[in-house]
């Protein structure tokens, strides 16, 4: 893989981003909901409303607003949030690490358990544990992440209250973070009580997000592994006297990982989308939670900034997955 490949992929991302920015900008101004109408309480006059509209630059034509917005974007200015009255870039930079930590941990849980389930399922092929695993995957995949979130709250937060159900860490702990990546930063700074608290609070939201992804990944990986197990090179390995475990781990797994990894990439983007509801339910202060408030308040600059952030994340994740796949499968490196 050459540097040119990466540069080419990044350059190709620019039109995608421009498209996302344009569509979001136009859609937000076409769909119903006027932020100024929402912020005028009883007692506001027509003059007050006109003043507010001018104050937020909404008195200009859509074309003018778009040109101004694009100009601001090129200088790194995402605008100012109407509802939070802070720089959109700063707001997103403050919340993004929260969501990134959550989805990365969720992804690790999902992939880790998916691997175990798939490998065990293939190892116990045509026996009752395989049927049990298949049924388990079927149940997990049928329930969306937000329902898992509510169920986990009821079971482990209320019925057997052993897990926290709100926030990012214990509210009695003070942690003046420089990066907002609490998990990594607390480890590096030796604040292990923060690490422990963050992990403790992350378990339920991360598991809620991870479960559906785990089930889908396990199903695909298991299916790919089963297909690989019927290939000739596996038969050859058997005739050479290799054990079943070694054949699965050392021979079949690597080939089966390519489609599973590609799927994980797609699912990871859904995982980021899933944070919107799960963060809301657990009061987790990430960009998903902020996105709901932004939509409710018709906070146009913030919604635009968030959509752009999601678009960048999707592009980067897909690029990362492509690189991973290329590294796993040498045949694709020169394709």
């Amino acid at each position, binding site marked *: 893989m050459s540097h040119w490949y990466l540069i080419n992929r990044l350059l190709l991302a620019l039109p995608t981003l421009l498209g996302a920015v344009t569509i979001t900008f136009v859609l937000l101004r076409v769909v*119903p909901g006027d*932020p100024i109408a*929402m*912020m*005028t309480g009883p007692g506001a006059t027509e003059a007050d409303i006109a003043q507010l509209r001018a104050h937020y630059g909404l008195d200009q034509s859509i074309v003018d607003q778009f040109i101004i917005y694009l100009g601001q974007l090129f200088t790194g200015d995402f605008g100012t949030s109407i*509802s*939070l009255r802070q720089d959109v870039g700063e707001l997103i930079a403050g919340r993004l690490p929260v969501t990134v930590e959550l989805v990365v941990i969720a992804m690790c849980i999902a992939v880790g358990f998916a691997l175990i389930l798939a490998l065990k399922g293939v190892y116990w092929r045509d026996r009752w544990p395989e049927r049990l695993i298949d049924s388990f995957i079927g149940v997990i995949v049928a329930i969306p992440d937000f329902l898992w979130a509510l169920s986990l709250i009821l079971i482990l937060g209320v019925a057997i209250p052993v897990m*926290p159900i709100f926030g990012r860490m214990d509210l009695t702990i003070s942690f003046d973070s420089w990066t907002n990546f609490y998990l990594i930063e607390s480890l590096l700074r030796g604040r292990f009580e923060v690490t422990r608290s963050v992990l403790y609070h992350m378990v339920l939201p991360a598991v809620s997000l991870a479960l559906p992804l785990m089930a889908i990944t396990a199903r695909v990986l298991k299916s790919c592994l089963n297909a690989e197990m019927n290939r000739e090179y596996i038969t050859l390995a058997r005739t050479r006297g290799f054990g079943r475990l070694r054949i699965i781990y050392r021979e079949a797994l690597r080939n089966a990982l390519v489609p599973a990894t590609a799927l994980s990439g797609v699912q990871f983007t859904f995982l980021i989308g899933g944070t919107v509801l799960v963060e809301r339910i657990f009061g987790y202060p990430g960009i998903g939670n902020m996105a709901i408030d932004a939509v409710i308040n018709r906070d146009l600059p913030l919604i635009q900034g968030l959509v752009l952030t999601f678009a960048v994340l999707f592009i980067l994740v897909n690029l990362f997955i492509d690189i991973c796949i290329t590294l796993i499968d040498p045949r694709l490196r020169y394709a």
Partner: protein
Amino acid sequence: MAMNRRSFLQVAGTASLAGALPMALKPSSVQAAGDTLTIAYNVSLPSWDPTTGLSSVNPGLQSIWKSVFDQYIDQNPDLSFKPGVLTEWGWNADKTRVHMKVRDGATWQDGKPITGEDIVWNLNRAANPESGNPVGGLIWGSVGNLKANGNEVTGDVNAYVADFFKWMAFLTGYILPPHYFEKVGAEGFEKAPMGSGPYRVVEFVRGSFVRMEAYDNYWGGQPAFRNVIFKFVTDATSRVAEVESGASDITLAIPFEEYDRLKGKSGLTGVTTPVSDIAMIFFNDIGPMEDANVRKAAVHAVDKEAIVSRLLRGYGVPLHTLQAPEYAAFDPTTTVEYNPDLARSLLAASGYSKDNPVRFTIQTTRGYLPKDYEVIQAVVAMWRKVGIEAEIEVYEVAKHYELRATDTLAPAAFYNWGDSIGDPNDSTGFAMFGPSPHSTWDTDDLDAMIGPLWGEKDEAKRITGWKAVDKYIAENAYVLPLYQQVQPVIHRSNLDFTPHVANYVLPHTTKPKG
């Protein structure tokens, strides 16, 4: 396959690890200390400036702001007014001048005294269009030429607004410390807010929580709880779980079914209070609503008692006007009878019947207010029985605001009108006066009645006038008031919680029992 030793150890090991994880991660002390009050709050705080911007007119945020900032004037739980940072206020005899007196000994949270100059700065800022105060023009701009002399403040009345001083206890009626605000700027203030209220902000994590500590020199005395945490738990199910699991001490705005379940649980107590929010149906003066018989039939056909008792489980107070019983212009003699037979005969007079119903659209939100969609379904079913076929259109509240601002709502539209100072200007007035950007009904007869009341300086005459307006509206069915909302609050049984008609959950008036 029989389970062998290896697979048994694998399963047992995995199960033990999963079981032990919560214990391993659980911090040694997760329970809040006894001097901390934790509130699972239903709204996330977007800004620390309660005087400007989108959020400043959001009634749901006032409890948090009132914990940190003083209002010029305060309110008792029954909506009556009491001194806040101002101990005296009023007009001169001909109501061309205003005067106020700042409380002796009141201080900002950095210890500096609150002065008359500070009040002048705050009032001037609120009236300045560039500040972004949503009601700056009509309310705060109604006085000017403000001067401070020690703790005394005087000013000229630019345009008489009868409820000007009541607004000092209402939306955007807060004071900010000028010396500090000018030093740190608006952005700095958002990061490190300072007020003069009973609590000061210790830590604020946007979208998650705010932790406060009692301000020792507060003029109103020390609150019972030294520390307060407002958790922003915007999901109702999560709020229920918070209070049920004991992670929070108080919560509000939960479904009535959950309220009924939780209030019976050991260790929890429930309190419901009728609050200053009125569920109502706007009528727009278009199409079928221009026919008085249709409007009157639509009003007489609705059994509000049944809606409250059956649909809302009794948590509501049926109303006949846009005045709740706690409001200044409430008149119990103005009533609208539930009479479906009368509704049928009114419709018949206009040529409508069950076989030939009058048709129009009714708009409603779904899930924005408790049981909003279900209430409208019930109303539509009642209308159908008399010969009104209404089609329900569901929209988001943002759409409602937009349509109302442009006077393009459907012939009927469900909404919730709040007026926590209980003045008729802010209930019937802004909701029904044609030129108001918030009104939907717009006819000359009603505007002619309301118009003179805005400038009426004789308070008794003004209130009598508004009562007459409400009676006229009821007789002509220009609006369909439904019921006064009730706020359910669940708290620990060992707390002494004071409900507030303005729908506040105030930590400084909450105490441990006994």
